[in-house]
């Protein structure tokens, strides 16, 4: 008579190695950044001109206690990277979340409400995307003045279109589904349908985009530091270290290579975390 519960509920997808590897790396970066004053072996700003360009500990002529060597001013590379992680993560978190909130809200409105709302938001996206992003951000920082909040504002202002476009398309697709129609018949208002029915279905997409955006934010911060438009040059940042290391690449490669590798791994971890989460939480893929 009645069909019984079939086996679909029992299917569980494996989290996957990449989800765990990327989550572990990010966890390490987060913990280290939070505990920076305690785990950093030296003051990141302390200069010692007698200890300039010391190689990492495993190489000939290293100075004990300076594990990843020192830069040309004798500052400890490891300590500067640890403190740089704080800025990188702060930018990733705040810029990522604010961008996601702004872009996803506008995209959801445009894709679900359609009509003139969609028209206005879509044209805005088109116009926005015609600006070259790097020049736009440099211009913005020039106007706002350097500083952590300026970087975050610049990223939000430039990257909200990334969320808006994708979420708009997703909301449009969801809006055409029969369950939206059933909700309309039942008497739910448009705002209610948008928030209760459609929003939960675009959230997985938003989360994936958010992790990608966090990776992008780290890179943007590094780029701006590289061209000296980030926060004050006293504070150690990964981008700033790469920029300084470039000048002495032949004499002290470690000043450039370690921050670069960390940056690379962190951005990779963010994007892989997003992919892994998508596999796990997307109801369509389940």
């Amino acid at each position, binding site marked *: *008579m*009645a*069909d*019984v*519960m*079939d086996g*679909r*509920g029992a299917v569980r997808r494996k989290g996957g190695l990449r989800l765990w590897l990327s989550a572990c790396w990010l966890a390490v970066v987060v913990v280290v950044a939070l505990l920076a004053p305690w785990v950093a072996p030296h003051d990141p700003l302390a200069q010692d001109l007698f200890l300039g360009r010391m190689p990492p500990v495993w190489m000939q002529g290293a100075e004990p206690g300076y594990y990843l060597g020192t830069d040309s001013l004798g500052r400890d590379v490891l300590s500067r990277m640890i403190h740089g992680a704080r800025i990188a993560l702060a930018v990733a978190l705040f810029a990522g979340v604010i961008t996601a909130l702004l872009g996803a809200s506008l995209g959801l409105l445009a894709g679900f409400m*359609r*009509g003139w709302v969609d028209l206005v938001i879509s044209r805005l996206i088109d116009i926005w995307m015609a600006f070259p992003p790097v020049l736009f951000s440099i211009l913005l920082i020039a106007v706002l003045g350097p500083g952590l909040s300026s970087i975050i504002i610049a990223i939000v202002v430039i990257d909200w279109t990334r969320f808006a476009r994708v979420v708009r398309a997703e909301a449009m697709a969801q809006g055409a*589904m*029969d*369950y939206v*129609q*059933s*909700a*309309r*018949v*039942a*008497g*739910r*208002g448009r705002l*209610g349908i948008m928030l*209760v*029915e459609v929003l*939960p*279905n675009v*959230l*997985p997409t938003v989360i994936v985009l958010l992790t990608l955006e966090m990776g992008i934010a780290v890179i943007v911060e590094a780029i701006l530091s590289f061209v000296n438009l980030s926060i004050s040059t006293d504070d150690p940042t990964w981008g700033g270290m790469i920029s300084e290391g470039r000048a002495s690449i032949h004499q002290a490669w470690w000043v450039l290579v370690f921050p670069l590798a960390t940056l690379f791994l962190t951005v990779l971890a963010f994007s892989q975390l997003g992919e892994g989460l998508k596999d796990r939480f997307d*109801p*369509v893929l*389940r």
Partner: protein
Amino acid sequence: MSFLEVRDLSLRIKGEQTRLLRSVSLSVSVGEVRGLVGESGAGKSMIGKAVLGILPRAVEVAGGEIWLDGQNLLALPVAQRRRVIGAKAALIPQDPLTALNPSRRIGPQITDRLVDILGWARNRAEARALELLEEVQIADPARVMRSYPHELSGGMRQRILIASAFAAEPKLIVADEPTTALDVTVQKQILRLIKGMQERHGTALLFVTHDLGVVSKVCQTISVLYAGLMVEDSATAAFYAGPRHAYSRALLAATPKYTDPLGSLTPVPEAVIAAVRAEVAAADGGWHG
């Protein structure tokens, strides 16, 4: 007056003159099942959508009235129309795979409308949902209430949609090809289920389908549409004994016979199509929207 009365309803695409529905009238009484058949594009789903107030945004009403339980829906302000429809009518959708929200549990999807829109207490709504799931013969309803749609089969999802449609005891249900997306064996169960529920609850049912075999099993009255024009409105028994309109006769003759599975299919003859098209043109000639 019947529970649902559609009078001279015309629909068109916004900004265009050609009508999708051409002055269609039909009525469904409480306890009656009316079949609405026609080729794809004939406008049968559009009637159901117009009644439930879910026309696509590009389509507009070009004339006519829709009366639901004595209220002229098209004359009501939008918010009030929505409340009337929500309380008195419900939809059994075509595709069970997209008609349940994939990211929400089944339970709230059934109870939400009762709680949020009709103001029931949550535990009363949940008891009602459990009772209905049992009525549509779902084993272990409590567990199904906690499931997500992707954990259930297509047939089960369609049963849930039927239960959900009956939840608020609406007096009219529009079933928009409710069995088209299911395989044949499940179709039969679902049809029997809808028919049984309709009889027990005494609802009026507008049954949209392109399957004349289904109509003969479920419906008491039948309306045939061609290109938005209603060409036949008969009792089912009379229809199968001998349709009045030449197009309906040809449509009935075109139905594949189970007794002759290898026989070639009969298309609707050209002459019949030409004749019914002339009728459509005549209907348009006398219409000024």
